[in-house]
């Protein structure tokens, strides 16, 4: 129980701080420090639980190794974003549409509540609480997307709120159907929303209701995760949000939706409905990777490019979920979060200097900013799954899992679209980096904490590199729990 309580103080403090001390210029720095404390608290509370098989349920909140992994990952991602946000907002104040202190205060208020909502989704064992948490993440992250107050960010926010709410509403219908199914099964005559209870009595649930529930839940949480037919909000929301916000969205929100998807498909598998998972979630996941790769071919805005790359990685993780390989899913989630956050932060601070998002105008960055551009290129390579980085191993594990289960169309679809995605990303990023300088001399004015603009991405990329090379089976057991 202490583990859950340990997570609450820091974000609530930041929210309170952001609400009342709006005039103080020191809110970002304090937020970063508090997030540091939050990381320490999460590590102290949750690290020992990692890798242990036991699962303890406390009024609808499950404490197990799966939840622990994603709590730690979300905390690290949000902490990285907050540390980078300090320097980011310093730079933002110098640009022409500088945000007011009130806006920055709002950003921190909503972001901290957003973090708590994400904890609720990851940790909840009760389907109802998970739904409420997920709906809360949508509503709380809407102001983050609307940070720039421009017409484009307004459009992105409107579409984000509307599509996600509709999707999640379908999700709730699925929850209701599962609840009804649990009432009709003999043992649970009263009916229960607890996943643990449902999984133990999975066999007695009426198969038709379970299938219907799974389909609606897949639609709900698939919209939040950004699977193929339901992905339309993802590129708009991620490209219009400020860099720290899109880093949090990409790095942790998608993971929460995917954890929910994992829990549902695990339940369906327990109820003997392996067939419906293979027929709905797996094709959707592989289609996501293929269409994301195709989308990447013609992108001309760097943040949309990264958004579609997130969509592609979501597809890979969803394939892992469809196949039932937790270690593949966990490894890919950790690597993708690290690399994608690093790349979004780097892209964000490059855009601040060059002032434009359009790839055609960004030319010759390698000559203008050799250090940062090389780091960005390495990050993009890491996200695209090139070997020295961890995402290659994760994709390899998922592919070998699919191959061993004799699913050639999954392997073929994935391998080809991963290659196409790599080529598309390489084309776009080389267009930006190579060639002689066309952009006016980027305003590399020195601001406070500028070192953190590069430090945070470097640490994250090193983390992913370590996972790529130093991954003995002991670390794998820690992350994965074998399967």
């Amino acid at each position, binding site marked *: 129980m202490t583990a859950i309580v340990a997570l609450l103080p820091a974000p609530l403090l930041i929210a309170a701080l952001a609400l009342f001390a709006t005039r103080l210029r020191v809110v970002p720095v304090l937020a970063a420090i508090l997030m540091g404390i939050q990381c320490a608290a999460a590590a102290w509370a949750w690290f020992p639980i990692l890798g242990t098989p036991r699962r303890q349920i406390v009024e609808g909140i499950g404490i197990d190794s799966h939840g622990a992994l994603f709590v730690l990952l979300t905390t690290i991602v949000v902490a990285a974003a907050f540390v980078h946000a300090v320097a980011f907002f310093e730079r933002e104040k110098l640009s022409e549409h500088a945000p007011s202190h009130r806006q920055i205060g709002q950003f921190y208020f909503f972001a901290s509540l957003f973090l708590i909502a994400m904890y609720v989704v990851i940790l909840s064992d009760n389907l109802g609480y998970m739904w409420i948490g997920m709906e809360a993440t949508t509503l709380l992250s809407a102001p983050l997307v609307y940070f720039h107050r421009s017409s484009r960010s307004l459009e992105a926010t*409107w*579409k984000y709120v509307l599509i996600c709410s509709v999707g999640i509403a379908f999700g709730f219908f699925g929850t209701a159907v599962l609840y009804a199914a649990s009432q009709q099964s003999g043992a649970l005559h009263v009916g229960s929303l607890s996943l643990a209870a449902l999984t133990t009595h999975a066999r007695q649930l009426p198969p038709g209701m379970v299938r219907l529930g799974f389909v609606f839940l897949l639609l709900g949480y698939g919209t939040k995760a950004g699977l193929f037919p*339901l992905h*339309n909000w993802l590129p708009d929301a991620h490209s219009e949000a400020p860099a720290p916000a899109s880093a949090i969205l990409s790095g942790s929100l998608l993971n929460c939706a995917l954890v929910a998807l994992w829990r549902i498909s695990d339940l369906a598998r327990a109820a003997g409905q392996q067939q419906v998972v293979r027929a709905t979630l797996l094709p959707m996941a592989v289609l996501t990777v293929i269409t994301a790769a195709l989308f990447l*071919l013609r992108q001309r805005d760097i943040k949309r490019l990264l958004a579609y790359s997130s969509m592609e990685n979501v597809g890979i993780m969803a394939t892992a979920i469809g196949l039932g390989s937790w270690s593949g899913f966990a490894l890919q989630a950790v690597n993708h979060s690290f690399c994608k956050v690093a790349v979004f932060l780097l892209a964000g601070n490059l855009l601040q200097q060059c002032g434009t998002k359009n790839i055609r105008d960004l030319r010759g960055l390698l000559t203008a900013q050799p250090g940062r551009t090389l780091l960005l290129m390495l990050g993009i390579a890491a996200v695209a799954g090139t*070997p020295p980085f961890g995402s290659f191993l994760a994709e390899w594990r998922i592919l070998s899992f699919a191959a061993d289960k004799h699913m050639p169309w999954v392997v073929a679809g994935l391998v080809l679209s991963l290659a*196409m995605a790599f080529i598309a990303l390489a084309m776009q990023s080389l267009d930006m980096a190579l060639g002689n300088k066309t952009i006016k001399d980027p305003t590399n004015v020195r601001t406070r904490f500028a070192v953190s603009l590069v430090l945070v991405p470097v640490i994250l990329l090193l983390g992913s590199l370590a996972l790529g090379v130093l991954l003995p089976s002991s670390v794998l057991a820690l992350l994965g729990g074998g399967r």
Partner: protein
Amino acid sequence: MTPQPHLESNLLYALAICWLVAPGVAVFQKANVDRLLGVILAVGSLILLAMGVAAFAYATTNIALPSPFSFAGIPVAFRFDPLAGLFLCVIAVVTGLTVPYLRGYCSHLTDKADMRIFWTALSALLISMPLVALSANALTFLVAWEAMSLTSAMLIATDHSSHSTRRATIVYLSATRLATAFLASGFLWAHALTASWTFADWHLSGTQALGPGVLVLIGLAVKAGSWPFHIWLPIAHPAAPAPVSALMSGVMVKVAIAAIVRLFVLSPAFNHPVFGIVILTIGAISSVWGILFALIQNDLKRLLAYSTVENVGIILMGVGASSLAAHAGLIVAARIALAASLLHVINHAAFKSGLFLGAGTIDMGTGTRNIELLGGLSKRMKATCACFTLAGAAICGLPPLNGFASEWLLYQGFLGASSGAHTPIERFSFMLLIGILALVGALAMACFVKAIGVAFLGRPRTKAAENAHEGDRGMVASQAAFTVTCIVLGLIPPVLLAVLNPIARVAYPGADSVAAAWTLPTPAMLVTLAVTLLAGAAWMARTKATMPERRYITWECGFGALGPRAQVNGTSFVQPIAHTFSVVFQYAESVSIEGESRRLFPDKVTATSTTEPVLETRLYQPVTSMFGWLGDQILHLQEGSIHAYLLTMLITLLILLAIGGAIQ
């Protein structure tokens, strides 16, 4: 000899440390450090040579890195066996001999590119290439392979101000990434069948080997640059700086061939007669196709890149013939063909690197690589001309040099296979291959006579060619070193064959050594050549004093002193051959005459010849534009109207419900 795993692993660590230091020095050391980096690379190549020799000397040893280094449970394992040893030595020698060239060439590069990235990428490449040759399991192979591709792409993009270099980098990256995709799916399939990642445990044969084998073969063929997948090679190699293209053509292409030999011939992981036929056919086609396209190139480096495609074809012909002969039970012919292809790997690494360095010196000396703008360079660049001519003679396979040794052995392999084969079709096809090899040899001679003649001999065609300047001492030393290696390798084939014998014995166990197949009277021939040359030279020198020599203009049939434009240039030299083979590259000539009315004195006559790379325009371009079109079509899904998005959600709901309902 007792296995010395710790020696080899220590050498492996030393190599890694040495070549990790180089980028460190490059990045932080501000002053001009090419000299220091050159020394580091030289030391690195020496260590690599020691590793290669150790791999030969001691029995085959497997080394896995200690526990923290592992790829998700799969160990990072390396295997030191004679085949890997051979390729390590080839990499070491080529790197070692290119090092002096680097210092001279880099002064030319510093204004155009960021040398820190160049040196880091170069040392990373020189670590990853041996690792690919050494890797023992699929995952280490893929990681090293992708690292090799990425670092070589960074090297190609060194001088990235020109558009063609950027296009070359992207084409190269896409080609290698698709190769990795094919390789990955092949390895996954093989793992599904054998439940192990190490190559040594894979012994698939019969129809089981077909699936994974074809995928792996396609992946390796793309990187080796053989026929249907070679289109990236003539785009990527010329764009790289000369020492890098020398390394890529001379060595990196061979690393893919090493993998083909390891997986399809030595204790074959994929054992099926059809692979021998497939490798033989793509080898034959790529040798003819490569040399025909090399013939019509006027950019020196593109010509050499196509000639690499041709030589890769010859090597693959040897590998294919040896695996086919082995399946037909002709062990002697199989062993000779395998030894021939491995010998050609060594020879090609020697003369191709020398030729590319020569092209680099010309590019630096005159500022252009188009031989139509050169001519008469031998007067100003004597050393480069001599080295280039001798290396050119070696690549055409002319006897006293090393090219002839491996081609002769290949002929012996084909002859042995054709006389021993059982069915008439096999006998006839092997004899046909002898014809193809002879045709390729004749075309190679025409191509390199054109390259050497038009570039070096005759009168300078432009100002740039007129005041060309020779490369500095280091560059000429490198080229001379490669040329000397060609000459020496030409003299000692029996020794080389004795060195290659352990590999042949691993592939086809048997008593007699491959060296016995070398029945050529090389010493007698050399004596006759030497005696005649020395006697003739002595006689001419003696009579030179008594006989005056007159220098006069070249014979111009009374038309008056013909300018340098009257000389035959590249296109017109190959016009007769191109006309005979016009169907291969859609060769079309057109002559336009202005002032036709005055029959005898037209104002202007322009003759143009056009060729079309058929493979690119008919096959690859439509496929790539189809993907582009797909990319455009899919954008319609994201047109921005929220109503469309909600409608898609509804349709998805209905489809999922239908699927859910259908599953009873």
